[in-house]
């Protein structure tokens, strides 16, 4: 059966009025960036356990159904398993000091390899979680405002931050549109006898290929319409023009609390990481 949009939930804002959703987008972005750096840096399971507690708190505060967030991991799991296997099989350590569990030709399974690969997977899961959480809890308008505010210093040295932000936002916005488009095309083809649910992996992939041409054409058409619509509303304007903001961002106590907690988390986990590096 053809219902794609149910499985692809990445990046859809859920407006439930929770405290997390109402936070200042600048704080959210800042915290997200800090956490992304943190997750990329950590290499201790204990430290990640502390992060898990933080995420649980965040999850509880956001009032987004946990099952829903977890389900968005699903399309991704096969890929993770693949990465895990490759990493384990081709693990090489600098010191060559490995506990071999299994060995065949150039493929090795070592205890260290398994631990290192598990760490990679945990890291990827955390990174995915924090980015999808940011998008679940932040509306597109907020996201743009926040990014513009944070990147505006770059404007001074001649980098067009605003334009970059706009490009990014449009890209995000197009994801659900493309999903609906693919769904429509798949339905049209299914109604004319294509069976997307039959055949092996290669046959199924071949069936997707004919969707690409119409998808690209409609994508370009949309982009063209959008650019005309933006120009019609004076986007860009002249050098020296600045867009004013209808809504002012304000940093309140809850923001300070969250930022404080995030910084505390960074500090604690980094210390844990130094004390017990695995």
């Amino acid at each position, binding site marked *: 059966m053809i219902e794609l949009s149910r499985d692809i939930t990445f990046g859809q804002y859920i407006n439930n009025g929770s405290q997390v959703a109402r936070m200042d987008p600048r704080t959210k972005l800042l915290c997200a960036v800090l956490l992304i750096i943190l997750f990329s840096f950590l290499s201790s399971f204990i430290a990640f356990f502390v992060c898990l507690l933080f995420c649980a708190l965040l999850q509880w505060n956001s009032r987004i159904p946990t099952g829903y967030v977890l389900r968005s991991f699903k399309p991704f799991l096969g890929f993770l398993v693949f990465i895990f296997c490759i990493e384990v099989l081709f693990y090489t350590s600098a010191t060559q000091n490995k506990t071999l569990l299994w060995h065949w030709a150039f493929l090795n399974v070592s205890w260290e390899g398994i631990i290192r690969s598990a760490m990679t997977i945990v890291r990827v899961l955390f990174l995915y979680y924090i980015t999808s959480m940011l998008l679940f809890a932040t509306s597109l308008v907020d996201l743009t405002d926040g990014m513009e505010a944070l990147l505006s210093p770059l404007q001074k040295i001649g980098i067009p931050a605003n334009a970059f932000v706009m490009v990014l936002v449009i890209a995000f916005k197009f994801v659900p549109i493309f999903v609906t488009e693919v769904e429509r095309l798949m*339905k049209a083809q299914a*109604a004319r006898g294509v069976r997307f649910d039959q055949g092996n992996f290669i046959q199924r992939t071949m069936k997707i290929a004919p969707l690409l041409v119409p998808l690209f054409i409609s994508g370009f058409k949309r982009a063209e319409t959008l650019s005309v619509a933006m120009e019609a509303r004076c986007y860009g304007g002249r050098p020296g023009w600045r867009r004013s903001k209808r809504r002012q961002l304000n940093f309140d106590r809850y923001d300070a609390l969250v930022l404080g907690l995030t910084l505390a988390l960074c500090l604690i986990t980094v210390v844990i990481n130094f004390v017990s590096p695995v």
Partner: protein
Amino acid sequence: MLFEMKNVYHTYMRGTPFAVDSLRGLSLSIPQGQTTALVGPTKAGKSTIVDMLAGLIKPASGTLLFEGDDVFASSFDIERIRSSVGVVFQSPEAQIFEETVGKDVSFGPRRKKVPLAESRRLVKESLEAVGLDYEDFRSRYTYALSGGQKRRVAIAGVLALQPRVIIFDEPSAGLDPRGRRELLELITRLKQQQNLSIVYVSSGLDDVIGLADTIYVLDRGRLAFQGTPREILAHASELAALDIALPEAAQIAVALRDTLPNIRTDVLNLNELEAEIIRVEGGTGGIPLSGSGVSPEIL
């Protein structure tokens, strides 16, 4: 019965914060060889029904019978529906996906591995059935066609599959009055010539009043009421409450209610409206209309 829906429920994005109830306990039946219209405002669940009848989505609960067999039972071969039901979707742009008209119309036959000569004959017949010249149109690019032509090509693509039922999902949306009239004529002609069953989905009654044998009026995933076009028009005020546009003649009849309280709203066309006005006016002595200086002939 061709199709029978019994107590069908459906929810989009089930289990997510975006869940939307689309059908809520809908039951209806679509007979063979007739034109059945599904009419309702937005969010009435019309497109969901279309997808379900085409075997593209599965109801959350309830049953859908195709010629007496449960469509979503494991023993049912979905190919049976796919080969006998053709769908003309809401926007023809989404339906046409090949570069040229000929390739697009022949998509179905090629999928079915129909021999080349046979496929060519089907394409020719289908294009001619929708009033497009085969030699002229077969090598044209689909993206350069006009709105009305695209719709015709989409219909031809469905006809090439030789279906027994065609579902039209708001086919006249976005067409100019002439294109719309031609489309309705085409559908009537196809039904007679090819002996098809037609399911016509529309948001207004204008298209279907002269076309349908039975009309189902839907509201928020439930059946509001059903009947022949005449029976449906008798519910003028309920239709207005659902924001369903009435056909021109019925609209005038409703507007005349202030002056002619006894006027019936179930008039199918302007001739019937005229007869009704004369009848009512004759009955009440003709005071209101001629009093206001309007003669029925002008109407």
